[in-house]
């Protein structure tokens, strides 16, 4: 399935019942050099628009929100050793976590790529 996007600059890719979540290229650019990512633990229950992760640049810490309801099934441990991966490959290798969704229909509330592009241009 094609990527979907939230207004908080997270992306979601849904495949085989699991959603992979990360932050968008726009988000990593505004944050600057990322030096630390705090990921949710496997098994953690996430609520749409609730806190899911924290991303820290040299200057500041920013919250990353869950774009959907669900349970974390995997976190990207690669980011522990190499948080700069979020800057280098935000929408592929720099993914944050994977979750099983409680309600697939919530995907419909997210933007597609074209709509997200318009949204960002309007900021």
């Amino acid at each position: 399935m094609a990527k979907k996007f939230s207004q908080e600059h997270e992306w979601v890719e849904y495949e085989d019942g699991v959603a992979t979540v990360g932050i968008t290229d726009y988000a990593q650019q505004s944050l600057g050099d990322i030096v630390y990512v705090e990921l949710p633990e496997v098994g953690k229950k996430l609520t749409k628009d609730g806190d899911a992760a924290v991303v820290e640049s040299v200057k500041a810490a920013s919250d990353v929100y869950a774009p959907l309801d669900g349970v974390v099934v995997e976190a990207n441990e690669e980011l522990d050793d190499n948080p700069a991966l979020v800057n280098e490959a935000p929408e592929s290798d720099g993914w944050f976590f994977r979750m099983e969704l409680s309600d697939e229909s919530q995907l419909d509330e997210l933007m597609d790529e074209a709509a997200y592009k318009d949204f960002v241009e309007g900021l």
Partner: protein
Amino acid sequence: MADHQTELLKTALYDLHVELGAKMVPFAGYDMPVQYPLGVKGEHLHTRAKAGLFDVSHMGQVRLNGEHRVAELEKLVPGDIAILKPGRTRYSAFTNDDGTILDDLMITNAGDSLFLVINAACKDDDIVHMRANLDNGVELIEIDDRALMALQGPDAARVLARFAPSVADMKFMSFAEIDIAGIACFVTRSGYTGEDGYEISVPNERAEELARKLLAEEEVEAIGLGARDSLRLEAGLCLYGNDIDTTTTPVEGDLNWIINKRRREEGGFKGSDIILDQLANGADRKRVGIKPEGKAPAREHTPVLNSDGEEIGEITSGGFGPTVDGPIAMGYVAIEFAAPGTKVDLMVRGKARPAEIVELPFAPHRYYRG
């Protein structure tokens, strides 16, 4: 309809910042570059490796004239200003009657006058404070027709000497009026990064010309406020408003060294009874370096706990040090926990994370002492 938003002030280098692609942010009433396309981390590392050019024109520049300028200023600061020879600069602080700190500043004996550099966010209050307290014919002149830039890093001297050979011989914390590339500048060999370097006061109308000349040198990159903050934190230097303010005394702030010998004996500066009592008997808390274990940075206002989980202090500046390549912080802890090597916990997002009290600075100072 009335517009109640205050217009941000622009420095003489504003157009240049925009042209260089800087991300501009409001800071102390000015529209300032927080970073350029190189990014905070790249700018930080570049300054430590070669040379960085900073616009610090938002800071206040003040001249004090009058026969009694030294004795009058000494009423407001704990430093020995009388001992400063012409061409020498000293770091000091304005204290108040409570013994706490109104601002930190640089004081230079410029020969026929004193030249002060004060913080942007405090400059209006500082000037009111000085006008109210400097008597005996002291005249205060706000220098608002000059920009201020800092050239910092191991290559700073080499680069600046290409335009003005005599700067190479200046020692750390010395001052001279020097023509740089034909522009009349006030040059201090000082800075706030822990590196060798200069602060250069230059007429507004020639500031951009000088900045372009320096940036054209291959060693020099433009550096924003973001890297200025991480550089000064690694150097263990206080940021006024975070690490020192009107709730902290110089003794609590671990700035005993700014209270010079004669002033310890004579007192006679604002709050000197309180400050000298703390010097003799100790303060209840102290500013210290704090090194978080692991990789998670701990930011300002993070509570510091002892091993029993009791709160013993707070982080006042915290973040990531690109040269250290890890999280670094400073803050205040109760005096019995202030010794380097003491283990503490930092409460970050509801989780206690181990850290250790350490000596400052995190990155060694590399000043030029001749």
